[in-house]
């Protein structure tokens, strides 16, 4: 193709006035190994466009959304059945018979007994608190350590 023609087309191209056919002509021209040196950069541009047309999407798209839908509804149904089951079972468990009440009261009195004896026990162990008191009173012995520390501190600077 005549160079003149290409230059004219390029001008039109940059004004956005070329047709798709003319743009195909341009792409064909710039596919050649050698183009006019002052148009070299167009070769890069059109080369880029041509190279980009080859890029493809290769990832798989999971379309079995329909199955997921079934599973979803199945789980909803399962939960519904479960809840209905729990609802209808509950009243039976809730009815309290005389025997139940008796057992409850008995258990309660036993537990009360246990807690009462426990409290008694802790009250008796109370005198152990005296040991703590004695401990705080012996605290003044720490004063002994102070003078020792002072002596050591005084010695150090003298050595240096």
């Amino acid at each position, binding site marked *: 193709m005549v160079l003149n023609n290409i230059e004219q087309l390029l001008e039109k*191209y*940059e*004004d*956005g*006035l070329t047709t*798709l056919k003319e*743009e195909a002509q341009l792409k064909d021209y710039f596919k050649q190994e050698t183009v006019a040196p002052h148009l070299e*950069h*167009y070769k*890069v*541009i059109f*080369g*880029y*466009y041509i*190279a*980009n*047309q080859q*890029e*493809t*999407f290769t*990832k798989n*798209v999971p*379309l079995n*959304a329909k199955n997921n839908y079934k599973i979803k509804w199945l789980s909803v149904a399962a939960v519904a059945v479960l809840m209905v089951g729990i609802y209808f079972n509950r009243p039976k468990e809730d009815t309290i018979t005389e025997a139940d009440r008796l057992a409850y009261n008995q258990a309660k009195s036993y537990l009360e007994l246990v807690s009462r004896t426990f409290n008694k026990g802790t009250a008796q162990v109370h005198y152990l608190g005296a040991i703590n008191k004695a401990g705080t009173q012996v605290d003044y012995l720490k004063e002994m350590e102070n003078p020792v520390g002072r002596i050591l501190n005084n010695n150090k600077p003298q050595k240096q």
Partner: protein
Amino acid sequence: MARRNRNQPTKMTQTEFLNIVMPFKDKVFRLAKRLLVSREEAEDATQEVILKLWKNKAKMEQYKNVEAFSMTMTKNFCLDKLKSKQAQNLKIVHSNYQDHNVALQKQIEVNDSLKWVAKIIEDLPEQQKMVVQLRDIEQYDNDEIAKMLDMNPTAVRVALSRARKAIREKLTSTHNYGVK
């Protein structure tokens, strides 16, 4: 479409759906990649668009042009994504850090002039990016592009012209003194 039947909605099978979608899935992907840059994100976006189409397949027969509709969907999806990403980045990214990054990338890509073109297009405003993608790579005509991007055909032509000039100017300037 002649076989539209009100009482009996036509059920589209998976193969029928794929026959419609497969021819343009790459175009969706490439547009997404042009906007989102990263390959993984573009793949996710494409997947999302196809899944949305699949979910709405019952309505698909009402669309006059599924392909154009999908491209519009892709555009909207990606622009939304970019918007939310931008909002996040504003909080985290330090401007100095970004400058370093660009300089480094430039150094790495200096030798590859095709990558230069990609970089230049990346820096264009979104609308010009999309117009170049749809016209110079996907070879849609301006009327189709106008519909896809919700613009008027004149605006498409103007955006195209600006983008083409900007790409050529930037490329020649980098070739002359930026890179040697």
